[in-house]
C-alpha cells in the first residue's frame, strides 16, 4: 500500500516536471514565430476552392517563415458577427462590410493599424473615398479595403432564350424588367424576377438598391442627427413595382424568403430569370452552387431618368482583432497585403494568384470596382487577362455600362438598422395582397429614425 502511494507521488511529480519543461521549450520556440488566424472561405465552399486557399497560405508562409497562418471558415452575417465579436472568437484577420467598419472602429472594436498601413508602398494609390470607409473620425485606419462592388442585374441567358428574349439585350429600364419578367414566367414557368426577402437585412438592402435606381434616398444628413426618409415617394414606387410583379403579373415565383445565399442557389439551379445582387457574386455561384457558366449574364441596374438615380455601391474591408499584439498586427497587415492587395498592385503576384485560382478551377476576372484609382484597376485587369476563365463576354453589358452610372454609397448612419426596418415592409408587400404600403413605411421610418438617433 505505502510503496504504491509513494510511487504514484513520484510519478506525478516527474510528470509535472516534464510538462513544465515542454511548456518552457514551447514558449522559447513560439517567441520566434507568430500565429495568426485568418478568414478563409464561406462555409460550404467546394474542396477545390479550399485547396486553392491553402496553396496561397503555403506560398505566404514560405515567403514569411516567422508567420504561421491558420485559415478559419468565415462569412459575415449580422447575427453571427455580433455574437463572435462579443465572445472574442473572431479570427485575427476578418472581414466587415463598408456599412459597419467605421462605427466598429469608433467603438474600439477594430485594431488600429494606421502605422503598418502607411508603410505599404501603394498607400498613396488608394481611392480616398474607399479608404475613408475604414478610417475613424480621428484619422485612425482600422480596416483595409479588399473589394468594392456595385449592385448589378444578374440574368439567366438560357431562360431568356427559352422565353424568346434576346440574351444580349438585357432590360435597360424598369418597365422592360417588368415586361421581361412576365414573359419569362409565362413561357418557362420559372420566376421571371426574384428579390431577396429574408429577415436578415438583405430584403431592405435590395429595396434600397431599387429605390436608389429610381432616384430616392433613405436618409439625409449624417451621424446621429441624420433624418430617415424611408417614406419618400420613390420607395412607394419601388414597392408598387414589386406589388405589380408579385400579384398582377405573378412573375416572382412562389417563395419570397430568400437571403443572399438562397437566391444565388436558386439562380444557379435555373429557377430565376433575373435578380439583383452585388456584381461579384459569380465567385459564390461557382464556389458554392456549381453554376453552368453558359447561363450567366450580367447587366447594369436599370436607372430611371431622375437626375438622382444611381447604383448602390458597397464593399468589404479586412480588419484586425483589437486584442492582437504588435507582432500579430504586423503579421496580419502582411497577410492582408499579400492576400488582398498584392494581386491588385503587383504583376507577379497578380499572375501567381490567378494561376493558383485557375489551377483549382476557381473564377478569375469576376467584375469588381476599383479600390485604387481607375488606372491601376485597368492595369491590373490586363495582367490577369490571359487567365480569365469567367464568361466575360456575357458580362459585357455590365462592364461597359457600370462606369457610366453614378455610384452612390449605402445610407451612412445605422445602415444595417435601416435595412432591418425595411425587411418587414418588403415581406408584407410580397405576402399580403392588400398590404398598406404607406402605413408600413411610416412604421418602418420611425423604427429606423430611433435607431439612427441612438447610434445603433
Amino acid at each position, binding site marked *: 500500500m505505502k510503496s504504491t502511494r509513494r510511487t504514484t507521488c513520484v510519478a506525478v511529480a516527474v510528470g509535472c516536471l516534464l510538462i513544465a519543461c515542454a511548456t518552457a521549450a514551447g514558449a522559447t520556440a513560439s517567441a520566434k514565430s507568430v500565429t495568426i488566424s485568418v478568414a478563409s472561405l464561406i462555409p460550404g465552399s467546394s474542396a477545390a476552392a479550399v485547396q486553392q486557399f491553402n496553396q496561397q497560405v503555403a506560398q505566404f508562409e514560405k515567403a514569411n517563415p516567422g508567420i504561421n497562418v491558420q485559415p478559419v471558415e468565415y462569412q*459575415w452575417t*449580422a*447575427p*453571427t*458577427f*455580433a*455574437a463572435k*465579436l*462579443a465572445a472574442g472568437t473572431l479570427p485575427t484577420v476578418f472581414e466587415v462590410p463598408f456599412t*459597419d467598419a467605421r*462605427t*466598429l472602429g469608433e*467603438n*474600439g*472594436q477594430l485594431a488600429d493599424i494606421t502605422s503598418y498601413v502607411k508603410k505599404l508602398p501603394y498607400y498613396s494609390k488608394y481611392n480616398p473615398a474607399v479608404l475613408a470607409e475604414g478610417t475613424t473620425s480621428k484619422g485612425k485606419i482600422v480596416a483595409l479595403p479588399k473589394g468594392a462592388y456595385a449592385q448589378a442585374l444578374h440574368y439567366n441567358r438560357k431562360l431568356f432564350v427559352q422565353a424568346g428574349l434576346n440574351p444580349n439585350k438585357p432590360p435597360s429600364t424598369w418597365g422592360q424588367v417588368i415586361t421581361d419578367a412576365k414573359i419569362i414566367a409565362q413561357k418557362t414557368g420559372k420566376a421571371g424576377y426574384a428579390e431577396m*426577402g*429574408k*429577415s*436578415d437585412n438583405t430584403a431592405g438592402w435590395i429595396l434600397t438598391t431599387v429605390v436608389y435606381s429610381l432616384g430616392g434616398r433613405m436618409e439625409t444628413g449624417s451621424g446621429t442627427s441624420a433624418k430617415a426618409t424611408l417614406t419618400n415617394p420613390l420607395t412607394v414606387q419601388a414597392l408598387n413595382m414589386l406589388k405589380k410583379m408579385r400579384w398582377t403579373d405573378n412573375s416572382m*415565383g*412562389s*417563395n*419570397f*424568403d430568400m437571403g443572399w445565399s438562397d437566391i444565388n442557389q436558386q439562380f444557379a439551379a435555373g429557377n430565376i430569370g433575373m435578380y439583383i445582387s452585388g456584381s461579384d457574386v459569380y465567385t459564390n455561384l461557382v464556389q458554392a452552387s456549381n453554376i453552368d457558366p453558359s447561363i450567366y449574364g450580367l447587366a447594369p441596374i436599370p436607372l430611371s431618368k431622375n437626375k438622382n438615380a444611381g447604383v448602390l455601391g458597397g464593399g468589404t474591408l479586412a480588419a484586425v482583432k483589437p486584442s492582437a499584439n504588435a507582432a500579430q498586427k504586423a503579421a496580419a497587415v502582411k497577410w492582408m497585403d499579400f492576400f488582398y492587395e498584392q494581386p491588385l498592385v503587383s504583376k507577379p503576384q497578380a499572375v501567381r494568384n490567378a494561376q493558383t485560382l485557375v489551377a483549382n478551377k476557381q473564377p478569375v476576372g469576376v467584375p469588381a470596382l476599383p479600390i485604387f484609382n481607375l488606372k491601376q484597376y485597368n492595369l491590373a485587369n490586363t495582367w490577369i487577362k490571359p487567365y480569365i476563365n469567367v464568361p466575360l463576354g456575357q458580362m459585357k453589358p455590365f462592364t461597359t455600362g457600370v462606369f457610366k452610372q453614378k455610384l452612390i454609397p449605402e445610407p451612412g448612419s445605422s445602415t*444595417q*438598422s435601416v435595412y*432591418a426596418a425595411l*425587411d*418587414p*415592409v418588403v*415581406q*408584407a408587400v*410580397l*405576402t*399580403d395582397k392588400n398590404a398598406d404600403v404607406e402605413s408600413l413605411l411610416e*412604421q418602418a421610418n420611425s*423604427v429606423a429614425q430611433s435607431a439612427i438617433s441612438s447610434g*445603433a
Partner: protein
Amino acid sequence: MTRDSEHRLPRRTPLTWVRSGGLSTLLFLLPLLFVFGAFSWYPIVRTVVMSVQHTNLVQPATWVGLKNFKAVVHDPLFPIAVKNTAYFAGLALLFGYPIPLIGAVLMSEVRKRRGIYSALAYLPVVIPPVVAVLLWKTFYDASSTGVFNTILGWVHISPQPWLQSQGTAMPSLVLESTWANAGGTVIIYLAALTSVNTELYEAAAVDGAGILRKIWHITLPQLRGVLLVTMILQIIGTAQVFLEPYLFTSGGPANSTLTVLLLIYNYAFGNSLGGDYGKATALSLMLAVFLALFSWIYLRATRSWSTE
C-alpha cells in the same frame, strides 16, 4: 458501564468526517456543483445583473436601473411577439395537446405489435430538431412542385403558401412542432395507461358503455395527474419556442412568426455592431417571472383536481 458506552455517540470531528467518506462524497459532488454553477446558476445571476445595465459585452457596462424594462415594454415589436407566442401556444394546445393522447389510446387498444407503433411514434423525436426543421422547410416549398403541395394536388386541393403567407406561417410551424414532439408524450401516456385498472373497463362494459364513454368516464379521469403535468409542461415549452420561428422564417413574413424568444435573440444578436444585452436579459427575466407566476397559479388551481 458497558451500556453507557454503547449509547454514547462518537464525537464528530473533521477527521471522522473524512474517515466516514466525506471527502469522496465532496469529490463526487464537485463536478455537479461546477457544471450547474458555471452553466446554470452563474448565467442566471448574470442575467439579473445585466438586465439593469446597458451593455454590449465589449465596452464597460453602465447601470441604468429599470430603463431596459421600460424600453422593452415600449417597443412596438413587444406586443406583436407576445401575441404571436400566445397564438403558437394556443394552437399547440388546441391541436398538439390532444393528438398524443388520442394516439396513445388508439395504440393501447392494439393487441399485436404495439412496439412498432410506439417506435414509429417516437421516431420524429429522435431526428435532430434542426434537421427536422430544414427537412420540413423544403417540404413547405410554396410552388406547385413542392412536396406538400404535390400531395395536396393528388386530392385536388390547390397549392398552399405555407410559410410564404402571414396567415399560414404560424399554423405551419405548429404542424411541424406537433409532428416533432408528439412522440415523447405518446410514450408517457402509454406508460400511464397501463396503470389504469382494467376492472373499471369491465364494469363499464357491463353497464353498457361504448368505447367513447369508456374513454371519457374512465381513461381521462384516471390519467388526470399526468394530463395536468403534461399540459403545464407544454405551455411552458411552447411559450419559449425559438427553433421553429428562427429556422423556418426568421420571424417573418412581416413579423407574423416573431416570438418572445426570437425577439430576445434579435435584441442580443440582431445588430451587427453589437447587441443590446440589457434589453435581451430584461425580456428574458420578464418571461421567466411570468412563467413562474403562471405555473404557481396553475398548480394551485389544479391541486384539487389532481389529488384523489
